[in-house]
Every structure is written in C-alpha cells, then in structure tokens.
C-alpha cells in the first residue's frame, strides 16, 4: 500500500454515464481481485474509492459511473494526465476459499451495476486457477449494459438480466439462478441481500463512505458477527456467514 502517480492511458465511455479508465503505473502490490484504489481528484478533499477491474504488470483498469462531482471530473480527464492514487486497498476476494467452496458446482460471480467491474478481475483470476466461474450481470434495462462482451471474450458463461426484460433474462440477478452454490457478489445492497438470502455460501463486497481508505479513521466500520470491521481494511469483501443485515 502506498500512494503513487499513475498516468491515464485511456478514458472511454462504455455508455453515457459509465467510463473505463486505463492507467499506467505500479501494480506490483495488488494481491487479489476485489481490492480497490483511492483516487485523489484535484480540488476535492476526500479521495474517491474505485474497485480494481483488471490489471497486468504495469496497467490498471477501473470502471466508474458518473454520480457526482468527483466522477464528473474523472470523466473529463484526458490521456496523459497524471493521477495520485493510493492503493491497492482492502482484502479482495479470497481465491482459496472460492476454490474450496466451489467443489461441486462452479463458482457463481454476480455483479450489479458498478459492482460488475471487480467481477471481471475475479473471473480472470479464477480462470488462471482453472476454476472457470459462471457469471451473472444485472442491469435495469438494455441500454445500461456494459462489459458483456469483455466477459464473453474471457470464455466464461455469462447471463445478463434486465429488470424490464429488454435484454437477456427478465428480472433480477437472483432470477437467473435456481440454487446458487458458492457465490461472489458485488453491487447495490438490496441486490447483495437478495443474493445472500439464496446463496449457500460465498463472499460479498460492500461499499461505505470512506475518509482514509486504509484503516486510519474508522469512518467505514460495519458490524459483523465477529465485531466491527472496517470496510476499507478488513473488507470490502466479507464472508457470507459473518454478515449482519
């Protein structure tokens, strides 16, 4: 964990309000998919936490949705610009546990909205381990869909759900699976809860408003079965059995 300077290599709109940014810089400390980075944006006080979507030796990919001032500014950034980034942060998904938990059935990765990006890195990591996952991507409507092709290009099974049925399976991510076994999920809290209710076991990634992102302020703490955990440090990924709703 450290702060370092990354240079923007590309910053393209995947749809009107979702961007994919590729950054060149030191990725050597990234330990697991599901970790995140904390991005300093000139003129704003707090850094902005964004999940790592993908990385290789010296390139980092993030995907972000424009929801406020920080992400608006990010959307206007141009290749060549440098960013002060703190990371990698958080625990990320525990691949050993996924492998162990998904002996009978294939692991199921479920992403909703901007919970999708970390599932991409996770899918790749599982493929590397020869534990090919199944993937469900949830959207509200067909116009919102992004990264379906990128997942398919990995060679994994991908199901897409849309709440209004305009594409893929009509309904929510939970409508695309009957008896989910070991699930890794990231997305809005109501989705996480619905998946949690159904899944046998798994890992769930949470969001919280953060000040530091590295465990210094207790701003992001949540209650778990094993006491308080910091989403930024002991999270963002929690085990199914420890989660208290």
């Amino acid at each position: 964990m450290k702060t370092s300077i990354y240079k923007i290599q590309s910053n393209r709109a995947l749809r009107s309000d979702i961007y994919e940014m590729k950054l060149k810089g030191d990725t050597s400390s990234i330990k697991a998919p599901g970790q995140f980075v904390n991005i300093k944006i000139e003129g704003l006080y707090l850094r902005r936490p964004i999940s790592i979507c993908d990385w290789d030796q010296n390139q980092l990919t993030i995907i972000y949705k424009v929801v406020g001032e920080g992400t608006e500014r990010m959307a206007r950034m141009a290749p060549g610009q440098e960013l002060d980034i703190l990371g990698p942060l958080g625990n990320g998904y525990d691949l050993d546990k996924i492998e162990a938990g998904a002996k009978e059935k294939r692991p199921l990765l479920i992403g909703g909205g901007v919970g999708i990006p970390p599932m991409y890195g996770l899918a790749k990591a599982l493929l590397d381990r020869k534990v090919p996952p199944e993937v469900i991507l949830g959207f509200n409507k067909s116009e919102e869909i992004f990264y379906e092709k990128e997942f398919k290009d990995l060679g994994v099974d991908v199901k897409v759900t849309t709440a209004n049925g305009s594409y893929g399976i009509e309904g929510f991510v939970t409508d695309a699976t009957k008896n989910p076994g070991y699930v890794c999920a990231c997305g809005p809290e109501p989705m996480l809860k619905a998946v949690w209710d159904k899944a046998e076991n798994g890992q769930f990634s949470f969001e919280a408003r953060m000040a530091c992102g590295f465990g210094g302020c207790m701003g992001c703490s949540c209650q778990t079965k094993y006491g308080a955990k910091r989403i930024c440090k002991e999270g963002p990924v929690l085990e199914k059995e420890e989660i208290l709703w």
Partner: protein
Amino acid sequence: MVDTRVRLSGLTLENPVIPASGTFGYGKEYTEFYDINILGSISFKGTTADPRFGNPQPRIAECSQGMINSVGLQNPGLEAVINKELPELAKIYKKPVIANVSGFSIEEYAKCAEAMDRQQQVGIIEVNVSCPNVHDGGMAFGVLPESAAEVTKAVKAVTKKPVYIKLSPNVTDIVSIARACEEAGADGLSLINTLLGMRIDIKRRQPVIANKMGGFSGPAIFPIAVRMVYQVAKAVNIPVIGMGGVSSARDVVEMMMAGATAVQVGAANLVNPYACKEIIEELPLLLEELGIDRLEDIIGIAE
C-alpha cells in the same frame, strides 16, 4: 541546524508534529507508509471505559476543503486498549504518547485517566470534553466552564501525569472555558476539536450522515482554530497544543506563532497518509527560509 524541539509539561518532543486523536488509530496502519518514530508524539484514538462501535453508517461526508465525521468514539474499550493496543503501539513507537480519553460521566473520565496513569508509555493524558459525536455527555462537558473544570479536577485527582483538556470550538467564549480548566489544575490545553457541521444529499433529500450532524475538520476550519489558539494562549499560562486544519509546515508555523507549543494533525493524515512525514521533513527547511533557529522562539510571537 534548526532546533525543532518543543517542551510540553516536562516532555521534550523532537518536533512539534503530533497526529491528532482519531485520525491515526494506534499507529499501526501508518507503519506501512513510513517509520512513525519520526513523530513528535502520537495522540491515539479516544478511549472510553467500555467498547463502542460508534454511530451508524454513513458516518463520513465530504466538504469543501474538509470533511465531516460521526465516527462517535469507536474504540475497543479501556481494557482492550491497555492490554492489546498499547503493548502493540509500544513495539512500533518508542516515545511517550498522548492518551486521549473520553467519557459519558465524570466517573468514566476519571476511570480512564486512572488506568492511563499506570501506562508507562503515556506521557500526557488528553481529556476529550468536546466530541460532538455523542449525544449525551461528551461535548456537553466541554461547553460550560463549570463542567469542564469539574472533569479536570476529577482527572487531576487520579493521575500524576500531565493533564491536557481538549476544548470544543462550538462555544461562545472559549477563553472562559480555558481559564476554568487552568484554574482547575489542567497542565495544558488541546484545541480545537471538530466544529459541528452538516451536509445534505440533495438527491436523497436527507442528511449525508446517518446521525445528521457530525464533526467538521480539515483545512476549512484552520482560520477558526488559529483564532482560538491565539485567544486561549494569550489568556492562560499553560501550554496549548494547537490543531484544526493543519496540513503543511507553513500551517505548523502559523499555529505556533498564534501561541501553540505543539501542533496536532488530523484530517490531513486521512487524505495523505504521508502528511506528518512531509511536514516534519519540510519544517526545518521552512524555518531556515524564515530565519528561525529555534522553533520554540516563535511560540505566540504574533501580537
């Protein structure tokens, strides 16, 4: 060489830079960024008698050049702090530390202070009578001279270590409270704690913070902190630890010229984990540029 040492109630700090309580945990997280032994001291997270989870989520809001927190004194409680956190802190930090204690009753303050009195590494007990994030108690003690004095006396009665009272800025007349603490025997004062602030999420039409209001800190509050440190330092004869928005060596110098003997750095650590390190490295260079040989010479120099 510039002499950056400062003296606080018999303790000599190598430099005046101290991470502020609640923004540095018990130091561990920062060891990943730099050797924290460069710090003048550390004021660790506020301790209460019992473990506390603190307030519901969300408890952080962004502001223009600052932030609001409503952490609400999350801490593992006195026993765990003493048996677990302090021994671990002693391994990674070798100098005297500042024990920040809180309470919901005079007795709780005294209980925490008494326990801290027995901890060898604790050099100063900092009594937080000013947390805006706990509904009853906490801040209430710090907004009246009488109750602030009462807490001071109760803590003084149970410890021989220097006692610093941490004052709230959310008051009409901070000088009267400072004087009351001095008269009650305080060895020093720490100020300012956070200002009570609020943000509203205009999309959700609700306060950002679950608790509605929270403690506002960061560079935005610096001019208020400088003013209060100036007023208090002029009015009392005990040392003042100045804080509120300090983020650079320039801010440290300004705070000290206003009257602070040492300086705490809070929110700045959160947005830049290297903040204290950078300030400590920059300080001698700045002092040289300003023609200051001995940092202690500038304390309260601004008239």
